[in-house]
């Protein structure tokens, strides 16, 4: 902690701000010190810390004084930290908060996050060492000459003004955005009210609204993201969009399903389809609602929900119950198997392997042995040997 020097916090000419982060606490080695809440600024030349409550309290170290840095990831109840190991302080160092310290490192604790990005930028600056190519005023160099502060006055005001303008501009952009957002939301709310009123009319006049109108209404709800006030589903199945989507999915998924033994979990489908699309991705709900329509549209795939809640897509030709028979053979040939072992043998995901074994158990072909060592399945000898 004795490497820090007091500073005004203003940047020099040729010194540029790289990143800043609020909510940073400094530790002297492992010890907490009074500097517990500040804004940490990284420039091309220095690491500057300014107290959030008292802006006069501002100190810095030169990047050239850093030997190396380490990251300490956040945990539960612990903020992410960066450990900064420092060279010894030069003898002619300017005054700072500590005259001496037994520690040759400090820790920066990021109470409001931002540690990952900050570490990345700091590493970059350490690698690029831009301070070596961009000389600033004498007072910022460790082997200092005789005229501290001579160059400082020039240009500082200009830089400060630029920073202030940039801040104002950003603030202005944000507040304009918020204002526009609020106005937009008011209009959106009107749409919500209107949809409620229509839904009420539909409820009252059951059967008097045409199929066509219902479909139209549902598609309006879909566009706005309004939950269907009557059924409480977010638009419910039956929109044109989902029908088209279902047909598309049938086309896209045929081959992948065949490669994977005729069955895939909905999670796999979600990732596969969205990775393939790249843009205009499907929401999880889009996928589920489209899949719900597969069977009704007589497409060659169907959605199946296991007792556990796991959802899969199967080829119509896929008969999970028949797969169970072969699963029984596999388990019998090995004596007993866990889901993981079975998955590896057969070449399917553990999730689906487990579902198959559970189904086999449900059908009475397998018995379970549930212990701390895991869930193991055995052929059901009670059935076969009675």
């Amino acid at each position, binding site marked *: 902690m004795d490497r820090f020097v007091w500073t005004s916090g203003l940047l020099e000419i040729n010194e540029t701000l790289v990143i800043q982060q609020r909510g940073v606490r400094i530790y002297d080695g492992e010890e907490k010190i009074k500097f517990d809440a500040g804004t940490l600024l990284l420039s091309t030349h220095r690491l500057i810390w300014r107290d959030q409550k008292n802006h006069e309290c501002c100190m810095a170290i030169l990047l050239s004084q850093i030997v190396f840095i380490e990251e*300490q*990831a*956040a*945990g*539960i*109840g612990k903020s*992410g930290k960066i450990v900064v190991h420092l060279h010894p302080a030069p003898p002619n160092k300017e005054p700072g908060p500590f005259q001496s310290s037994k520690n040759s490192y400090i820790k920066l604790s990021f109470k409001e996050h931002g540690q*990952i990005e900050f570490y*990345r930028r700091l590493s970059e600056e350490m690698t690029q060492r831009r301070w070596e190519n961009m000389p600033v005023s004498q007072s910022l160099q460790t082997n200092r000459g005789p005229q501290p502060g001579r160059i400082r006055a020039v240009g500082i005001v200009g830089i400060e003004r630029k920073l202030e303008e940039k801040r104002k501009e950003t603030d202005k*952009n944000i507040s304009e955005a*918020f204002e*526009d*957002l*609020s106005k*937009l*939301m008011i*209009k*959106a*709310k*009107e*749409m*919500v009210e209107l949809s409620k009123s*229509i839904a009420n*009319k539909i409820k009252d*006049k059951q059967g*008097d609204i045409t199929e066509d*109108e219902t479909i*139209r*209404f549902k598609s*309006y709800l*879909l*566009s*706005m*993201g*309004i*939950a269907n006030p009557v059924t409480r589903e*977010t*638009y419910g199945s039956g929109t044109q*969009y989902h029908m088209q989507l279902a047909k598309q999915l049938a086309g896209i998924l045929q081959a992948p399903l065949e490669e994977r033994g005729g069955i895939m*979990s*909905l*999670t796999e489908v*979600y*990732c596969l389809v*969205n990775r393939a699309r790249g843009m*205009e*991705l*499907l*929401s*999880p*709900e*889009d*996928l*589920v609602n489209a899949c719900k329509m597969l069977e009704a549209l007589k497409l060659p795939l169907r959605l199946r929900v296991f007792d*556990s*809640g*796991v*959802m899969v897509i199967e080829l119509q030709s896929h008969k999970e119950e028949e797969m169970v028979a072969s699963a029984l053979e596999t388990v019998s040939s090995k004596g007993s198997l866990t889901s993981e072992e079975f998955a590896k043998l057969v070449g399917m995901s553990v999730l689906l392997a487990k579902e198959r074994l559970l189904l086999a158990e449900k059908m009475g072909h397998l018995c379970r042995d549930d*212990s*701390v060592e895991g869930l193991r399945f055995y052929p059901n000898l009670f059935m076969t040997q009675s």
Partner: protein
Amino acid sequence: MHRRGVGAGAIAKKKLAEAKYKERGTVLAEDQLAQMSKQLDMFKTNLEEFASKHKQEIRKNPEFRVQFQDMCATIGVDPLASGKGFWSEMLGVGDFYYELGVQIIEVCLALKHRNGGLITLEELHQQVLKGRGKFAQDVSQDDLIRAIKKLKALGTGFCIIPVGGTYLIQSVPAELNMDHTVVLQLAEKNGYVTVSEIKASLKWETERARQVLEHLLKEGLAWLDLQAPGEAHYWLPALFTDLYSQEITAEEAREALP
């Protein structure tokens, strides 16, 4: 004779009146639907204007996203319900969160063999950021939580467990009740927990502590260390800090998906 309301004629008249009333009811709905259609078009225009000015803001500014999401929730609108919704199409919020969903699934799958499907929000955040690479947009923990909430619809078993000041993300269907959660919180300090510790801190009986720990073992969330000094230690890989620094490349993550 002029009698009112009685007789075949009156009944017929009544029926006609009812029919007309019903018709009018349909007409009313039709009117309102037409009105909604018009207003929807207007709204779409407003949204387009908003998007042209502020689309970047949404993509670059996590805090703005939070504001946006909160406002939507307040008025009863879910901008992430469908990729076909206006919000998704015009503001691009959909793609942002749905892609994040894919990345979250991949990270969880890749690490499942290590932590049994339980991971801290912090670790998930780090791994996702790594996977996204240097030039991707910043993603906040709030963004992760919203993406995860949407993933629940897939029946994946994704679950968000509040623990201490943060969250554990569960990515496999495993049943965790209050007892399990409390023990997880206790384990956070050292990454492991013992029966005595549970008994001392939570004032439980041995049997209750043992049951909870056995369940965690069975689900693959805890590892049993019988060689620890004193009594058996139950370690929680989800809480290991040194695991954080290990690299999972995007390629590895994709390969983890069968």
